[in-house]
């Protein structure tokens, strides 16, 4: 069953096109992430789903119902805001009850819901406090409690973790994921943080300039990014982009890479597909963990280590290939020191190629 369908939605303010034809379709129970840099239109899209803004054209469907002309309160949604948006003069109990009170839910049922929700989020000892007396994480829980009390068909989260400190953010991220596993409600989640997007989402829509760059599962987005933007936006440290030319050597189509140790030809898997592009420029995309330390006797690139960044489990090696700075993620024990030379190889099964003009993926 479809839970949310967005059909060719556009939004314009005067001459400014915020959204340029958005199409998204998710099933009930899925966790949809809208991710992109600021100004990409993700929050506007969220407001359109919530009904706080009207689309210039297009259609929004929640469940089986077109909701373009339905008021926010009748869309059966609940929303959690970045600033939490708790009602400052009401205590936690009143905050959670306000929506039910407005909808005329009987008092007894209100009490039951408050008890259930506050137990679930472990805020039952805070019910008589005012928002001003709560910490950021507690406010975040109350905001989620207020949304849960509604028991909606669709949850909307608008950058809910952006105002929390790093440690709490990771904790709350896990909690949101657990909550989703337990409730199995459809969730739309806006974020600019690609780690949140990767860890939480069933489906990710990567947006830029009011256009969806790629819509797919986290694996698809990570392994097979549709274009340079998606490839660079998702993943940390981000994907290395190396300018190179397609060449032929010994019947194989591949690319030649130059490092401090000299030039080496790297054949591509399935390289014959690019036979018509021989001699043309392409951009090779390779993630830091796809550059490995070569075994003894294996063909490898001799690279000089410029800088190292130990993160604990891995060490980032900064070096240069084809005149571009390249980061490799290697095991700390295999990492050389700055000035050392290291033998590196690419995992050719996973590398991607991009067209330098259209920026689209080629393989």
């Amino acid at each position, binding site marked *: 069953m479809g839970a949310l369908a967005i059909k060719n939605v556009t939004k314009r303010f005067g001459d400014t096109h915020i959204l340029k034809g958005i199409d998204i379709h998710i099933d009930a129970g899925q966790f949809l992430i809208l991710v992109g840099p600021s100004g990409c239109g993700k929050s506007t899209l969220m407001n359109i789903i919530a009904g706080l803004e009207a689309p210039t054209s297009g259609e929004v469907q929640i469940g089986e119902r077109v909701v373009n002309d339905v008021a926010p309160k009748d869309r059966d949604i*609940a929303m959690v805001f970045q*600033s939490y948006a708790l009602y400052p003069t009401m205590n936690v109990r009143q905050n959670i009850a*306000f929506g039910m009170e*407005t909808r005329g839910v009987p008092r007894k049922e209100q009490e039951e819901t408050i008890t259930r929700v506050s137990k679930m989020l472990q805020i039952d000892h805070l019910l008589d406090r005012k928002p001003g007396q709560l910490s950021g994480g507690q406010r975040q829980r109350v905001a989620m409690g207020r949304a849960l009390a509604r028991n909606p068909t669709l949850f909307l989260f608008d950058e809910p973790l952006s105002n929390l400190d790093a440690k709490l953010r990771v904790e709350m991220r896990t909690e949101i994921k657990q909550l989703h596993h337990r409730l199995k409600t459809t969730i739309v989640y806006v974020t600019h943080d690609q780690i949140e997007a990767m860890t939480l989402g069933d489906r990710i829509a990567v947006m830029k300039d009011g256009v969806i760059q790629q819509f797919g599962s986290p694996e698809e987005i990570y392994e097979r990014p549709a274009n340079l933007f998606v490839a660079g936006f998702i993943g940390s440290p981000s994907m290395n982009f190396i300018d190179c030319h397609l060449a032929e050597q010994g019947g194989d189509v591949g690319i030649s890479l130059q490092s401090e140790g000299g030039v080496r030809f790297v054949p591509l898997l399935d390289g014959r597909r690019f036979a018509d592009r021989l001699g043309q420029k392409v951009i090779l995309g390779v993630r830091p963990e796809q550059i490995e330390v070569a075994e003894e006797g294996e063909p490898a690139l001799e690279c000089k280590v410029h800088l190292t960044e130990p993160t604990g489990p891995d060490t980032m090696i900064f070096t240069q290939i084809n005149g571009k700075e390249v980061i490799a993620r290697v095991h700390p024990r295999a990492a050389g020191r700055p000035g050392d030379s290291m033998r590196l190889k690419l995992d050719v099964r996973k590398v991607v190629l991009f067209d330098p003009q259209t920026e689209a993926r080629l393989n």
Partner: protein
Amino acid sequence: MTQFNGPAQYGFAERWLPRLVLAPSFLLTLVFVYGFIAWNGYLSFTASRLLPNYEWVGLAQYETLFANERAWVAVKNLFIFGGLFIGGGMAMGILLAVFLDQKIRGEGVLRTLYLYPMALSFIVTGTAWKWMLNPGLGLEKLVHDWGFTSFTFDWLVNPDMSIYTVVIAGIWQSSGFVMALFLAGLRGIDDSIIKAAQIDGASLPRIYWRIVLPALRPVFFSTLMILAHIAIKSFDLVMALTGGGPGFSSDVPATFMYASAFTRGQMGVGAASAMMMLATVAAIVVPYLYSELRGSRNA
């Protein structure tokens, strides 16, 4: 061995300049505010009539004051005027602020327009409203000239209603100011709180009544303080608009005090009424200051 001698490190000028600069205004305030309050307090216990004299009569002037019918009219008028002026000005101001907060076009122009009366002195306001409310000159004559000859609006010359004309002029003058205070408060409210309430299903009046206005409690109290002391001190507006008349029907404590002390040769009674006004203002301001200062110490 080095020793740290705090103030000794500063020169003579650094130490004395601040005190020197502050001294004149400190001295002037001491003499002309607190000194004269004390002197007035002393006068209220003397038999001063046209000119001050220092014959001690104890509470006799206060007894005269409390026995004076005109003084009680002034007190009653203060309550009528104060209540309606504060309540009406606040209601009008909040309403204007809420309307202006709806992201309307031309907000800047309207805001300035509504704030303008505050730029006028109460004398100008009083005089302008005196002309407008004058039955032979203003509103009543206008409607008569339109042909509705049965229309009457004679509050200005009606002893039972004259105080209400002061209320009208007062509200007109102050509501723009209240609006500005509340508008600033409304702008400080997080937009997403209103969005959250919309999704919760609350109507716009309910959002304002239950969520936004309760959050403006501090603004509410500051406004109340400002309007309350304007109301108690109000003198110029009444003098310009009704002169306390007809008769003494629109007297307020300040005009009563002025009349007693300077035109009717009862300086002792005037001093006593001034002390009563001081006590009234203090009764409002002191608890407020107390709670404010305590609040800021805790913060």
